[in-house]
């Protein structure tokens, strides 16, 4: 498995997203310009210029027409995927951290960081089919959790919103009323900041990665803890194979603590685990810094990782990978 190294960003990567067809890969980094690549050969297609701060997160519509990006410049922007034209900009009083489009692409959930006096919040915005009708009003705003909300995604049938962040608690909210429905257990849940959250392809379960060196698999409806995967390093990014029962965890020693003695000290590996048996299968090395972002191609035959080192590494699996037995 020889990876394709994609050098298009000048700052650490923050997020990766494939479109539904799996032919495009969108990458976000701290360098203000989200980039789109051919997911097959790693060729760069174009960039989306307009943000004035680190871009933390993005999502792409089911028909691959729209891209939504959230940035530290306190705005969330809608883009035309094809032309790179900015269609709309939602402005907030604080940096936007996470964005996720609902089933049907008519709603988006956006989280904002605590900033100055305002606490962190989850916003739900209406997305219009025609950009000229687009307004910036929030359908719903939820406040409550302490600290940053690092990820928020839609639950089944857009009825719930799942959020996780610095307070190490996973919460499920009613997306109509904004009521808190469920909260993860302090005992069994994460002990430190949850850095990432990724839904399975069909949405039945989701995986959270945390700085407590573990990742946990939860039931999307009941918020029951199903599995725990333990590693040796803080987890920054998680992804699940849509094809096989594999989960992949990325992370590593915090960049500010990286030792100078040995490259292995940081453990900047993407680790593969068996989803059901919770056993480690293998690892993919290569990054010079912690892995910040991971994404699986929807066909399950390739995945990409984005690191603190500014590289996106695109890996197409060898045929051996599909025959792994443990």
């Amino acid at each position: 498995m020889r990876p394709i190294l994609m050098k298009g960003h000048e700052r650490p990567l923050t997020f990766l997203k494939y479109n539904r067809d799996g032919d495009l890969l969108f990458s976000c980094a701290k360098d203000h310009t989200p980039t789109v690549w051919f997911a097959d050969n790693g060729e760069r297609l174009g960039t989306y210029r307009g943000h004035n701060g680190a871009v933390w997160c993005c999502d792409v519509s089911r028909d691959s027409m729209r891209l939504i990006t959230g940035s530290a410049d306190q705005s969330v922007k809608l883009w035309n995927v094809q032309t790179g034209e900015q269609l709309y900009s939602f402005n907030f009083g604080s940096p936007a951290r996470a964005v996720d489009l609902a089933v049907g692409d008519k709603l988006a959930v956006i989280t904002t960081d605590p900033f100055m006096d305002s606490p962190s919040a989850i916003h739900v915005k209406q997305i219009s089919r025609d950009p000229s009708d687009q307004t910036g009003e929030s359908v719903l705003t939820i406040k409550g959790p302490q600290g940053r909300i690092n990820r928020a995604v839609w639950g089944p049938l857009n009825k719930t919103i799942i959020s996780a962040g610095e307070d190490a608690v996973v919460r499920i909210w009613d997306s109509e009323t904004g009521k808190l429905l469920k909260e993860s257990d302090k005992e069994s849940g994460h002990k430190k900041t949850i850095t990432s959250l990724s839904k399975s392809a069909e949405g039945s379960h989701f995986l959270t990665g945390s700085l407590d060196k573990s990742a946990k698999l939860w039931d999307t409806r009941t918020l029951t803890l199903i599995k725990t995967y333990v590693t040796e390093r803080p987890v920054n990014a998680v992804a699940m194979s849509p094809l096989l029962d594999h989960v992949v965890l990325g992370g590593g020693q915090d960049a500010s603590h990286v030792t100078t003695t040995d490259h292995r000290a940081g453990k900047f590996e993407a680790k593969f685990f068996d989803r059901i048996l919770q056993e480690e299968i293998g690892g993919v090395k290569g990054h010079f810094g912690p892995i910040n972002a991971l994404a699986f191609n929807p066909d399950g035959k390739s995945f990409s990782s984005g690191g603190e080192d500014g590289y996106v590494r695109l890996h197409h699996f060898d045929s051996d990978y599909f025959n792994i037995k443990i």
Partner: protein
Amino acid sequence: MADVMLMKEIETTADRLGIDLSTVDLDSISLPPGQDFGILSDDEDVLQGGDNPELDIGFGNIIIVDNLPVVPREKFDKLEGVIRKIYSQIGVIKEDGLWMPIDPETQKTLGYCFIEFNSPLEAELAREKTNGYKLDRSHIFAVNMFDEFDTFMKVPDKWAPPEFTPYTSGENLQHWLTDEKARDQFVIRAGSDTEVLWNDARHLKPEPVYKRAFWTESFVQWSPLGTYLATVHRQGAAVWGGASTFNRLMRYAHPQVKLVDFSPGERYLVTYSSHEPSNPRDANRVVINIFDVRTGKVMRDFKGSADDFAIGGTGGVAGVSWPVFRWAGGKEDKYFARIGKNIISVYETETFSLIDKKSLKVENVVDFCWSPTDPILALFVPELGDHPARVSLMQIPSKDELRQKNLFSVSDCKMYWQSNGDYLAVKVDRYTKTKKSTYTGFELFRVRERDIPIEVFELENKNDKIIAFAWEPKGHRFAVIHGDNPRPDISFYSMRSANNTDKVKKLTTLKGKQANALFWSPTGRFVILAGLKGFNGQLEFYNVDELETMATAEHFMATDIEWDPTGRYVATAVTSVHEMENGFNIWSFNGKLLYRILKDHFFQFLWRPRPPSFLSPEKEEEIAKNLKKYSKKYEAEDQDVSMLLSEQDREKRRMLKEEWDKWLNEWKRLHEEEKLERQTLRDGEVSDEEEEYEAKEVEVEEILDVSEEVLSFEE
């Protein structure tokens, strides 16, 4: 004083709850720190009752000095002046703190006085320093603490025979040795927890024995034969052990104890503390107590300034090197010794006093060590003026010099005893002729042979730096890591050669190894060549009998390596000196990784030592000969366990899979139910094909070339 229950209430409550109060050890109950449940303890009451907490409580800072001269009034001032002069050197006497009563009838002093110091510490010091002070021939001070007054008053006039408490047999403190599977125990400390575990290598995991949070305040330590586990606390040290679990067996009061050390036969416990002096220019005050482990009685205490205990022989760092008291080898715990300026003080444990009532005078001595088995001292005295440096062996208690060797132009010396006390190796660093650099040689003493022959031994390249030296335990071989390059060489030597000519024989040299430390198996034969620190934890498991490498491995960043007492397993650990990777690995003796446990903030890993085997060497040899007969049984057992394990493993996996499938089907059902709703959300788009990807193998045949050839065929 809110909810203080009366004893009666407690009894009724206990009755109601069905608790037998007689079985409850009330002393063992302690409240969590910082929590008092509204119950004020008595001593707190005293503290809070006083308006001024600065107010002195008790008379701890007052001493009584007896045996003073009895003087008439005219001489009163003079005597007072003398006393004040003596005692104001030691501490600050309070204003009006010196009171010498006068007999109203005779108008003479009564021969004693009271002195009040600023602090109890000073009073304590004054008592220590001046008790027995000779003012003149007939006036020898007897100094006591005022607080002890009561104790002396209560001494009955008549001797009464002590009451005999009937003998109660204790629990079997060596119960762990009777483990059916002959496993070994170890203790680990991680975070605030201290845990004792079995090393269950067959099941490839540790089995918990006992766990306790905040068991110790700084570290834990096994006694040399493994009977006790010592913990240290602010008030003193404690030892734990027992048949089924870890009970506290004894406590040893020693405020602010810092270090502890057992005698090799674990009869005595030496505790050490060092206290900041009141005057910052003074050296720290050092208190050392020697306790009898079983009775908890103080056998002897030593107090003094840190300078008295520092071995400053080389004039280097002034510090106390632990252990201050080194015990002579053997199980009898007969002698212990410490080094002082130009002396070595050897004590014996029958009376806890110096042998022959005087220390051994050895001019300029800097280092000594006991033979691990016999009462033999090895001393090193560096060069001084015209006298050459020398190493000598001395028999105790006769103080006869068994052997002596003079050495010239020595810069430093280190002594290594072989574990049976058969050999002593002295590593000697000598100056070259220019005195600019040093080179290293060895003096090897054969202690068991007649007249103790000494052999001078040098490496082939005698300029090689010696990185490590280690004797094979119970054996006759030693290993040396030497060389200057980043990848040093390792050589093995034997003290026996084929025709027994008493000559050191070289066995082999391994070139260019990433190693800087040697760890012999406690049974000999196997050694781990380890590259710690700069080498990031390289491990090589080497068989010295066959002179071959059994395995090479790595425990990344490993800081500690410990063989289990039987030499079957090895633990390598990364302790909290590193931030990451904390935890330990257990390996078999031949370098197979058995299991790996990760623990954040990992501080200590210690195998529980075992007492020496009772088998005679002949019996051991016999067992080794018939090993096949014995091992059959165990091999069968091992196989059963491994079968069971893999069976369990399969079963577990099957369960997990089933559980998962059940859960997934439930989800699919719900998902199907919601299909229509989802379509509406997508404006009627039917495609709902999130799960429709499948891995399919498609074989594609491509014809590259077709060629025809006519072959002639003969029959």
